[in-house]
């Protein structure tokens, strides 16, 4: 097996995550799909690191994890605030600025 198979898996997971973001309307599940996409990118970075034989890819994956942690904290806080104000976690209900 060639490590390029890991890249195929990462592409597949990224695609599933992207389709989930487009299809689902519960904000929490949309957010989980974003996490899935970030994880797929991390897998690709780690595989690239192995293919090139240096650790820079792993460093970038590490920074992605840090950014993902910060993003999750703020995103979930926004979801909780939205749920408090309109008692729904559906992304369709956030239409206050619509005419």
């Amino acid at each position, binding site marked *: *097996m*060639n*490590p*390029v*198979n*890991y890249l*195929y898996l990462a*592409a*597949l*997971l*990224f695609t*599933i*995550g*992207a*389709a989930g973001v*487009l*299809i*689902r*309307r*519960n904000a*929490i*599940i949309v*957010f*989980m*799909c974003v*996490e*899935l996409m970030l*994880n797929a990118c*991390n*897998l690709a970075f*780690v*595989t690239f*690191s*192995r293919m090139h*034989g*240096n*650790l*820079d890819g*792993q*460093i970038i994956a*590490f*920074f992605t*994890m840090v*950014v*993902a*942690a*910060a*993003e*999750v*904290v*703020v995103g*979930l*806080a926004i979801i*909780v*605030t939205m*749920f408090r104000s309109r008692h*729904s*976690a*559906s992304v*369709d209900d956030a239409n206050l600025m619509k005419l």
Partner: protein
Amino acid sequence: MSTFAAAASTTSTGEAFQFWVLAVVAVLGALGTVLSKKTVHSALCLAGTMIILAVFYLAQGAYFLGVVQIVVYTGAIMMLFLFVVMLVGITAADSLKETLKGQRWLAAGCGLGFGILLIAGIGNASLDTFAGLGQANAGGNVEGLARLIFTKYVWAFEITGALLITAVVGAMVLTHRERTEERSTQRELSIARVRAGTQVPPLPAPGVYARHNAVDVPGLLPDGTTSDLSVSATLRDRGQIRDVSNEALADLAELEQRSESWLERSAPEVTAPEEASK
């Protein structure tokens, strides 16, 4: 073992076997995340996929990242997700009605096209050989990463600190609620209760049936009717009061009927059709 070989083209058979087994599970987990109707199931599927990715990191020589993946993603981030699901998602039913006509099929088509594009792109790249991390990990994976973080990427690492502080402050600001008036004390509450005079003693306890003592089962008043006051106000507002009084009466009637037929007080051919019709 060719640890220090410049380039190799295949991994070990064990790793290939592990990949093909776990990759299937990872894809199933990802599909479960997208397609599960319940948010909790989605979260658990995603946690499984993340653990498998951690195993892949370990298999690819990214030992530090493999452990960090488990600690940060499955440990911290997924638990945070589960917290919010418990806080929000359980009652927030995801309506499956399409608001935009044909949006789901269009989205699935876009996803399919995007996936074909990505996979064809990887397939066209010439990636026959790979260098392997034997040389880079020779002095230890953690040491190698530390050397890079604190020299080449030190600026990005410091910016990361600012990002984390911003995220913490942002989360606190977003979820903080300012009280507009002072919280009334227990003494003030009791005085108000006596002044109002509607319900001075404590509220009745829920569930006084022999077979049901759950909190969503209302207690019985002396006249046999149920008391809605005995159920928590939250459950009352949600309409989640479970009335089992009729059930209990039916059970009792059935018991009496059975004991009567046991004692042969009534003819068995009268009771038999009734039981068949149930």
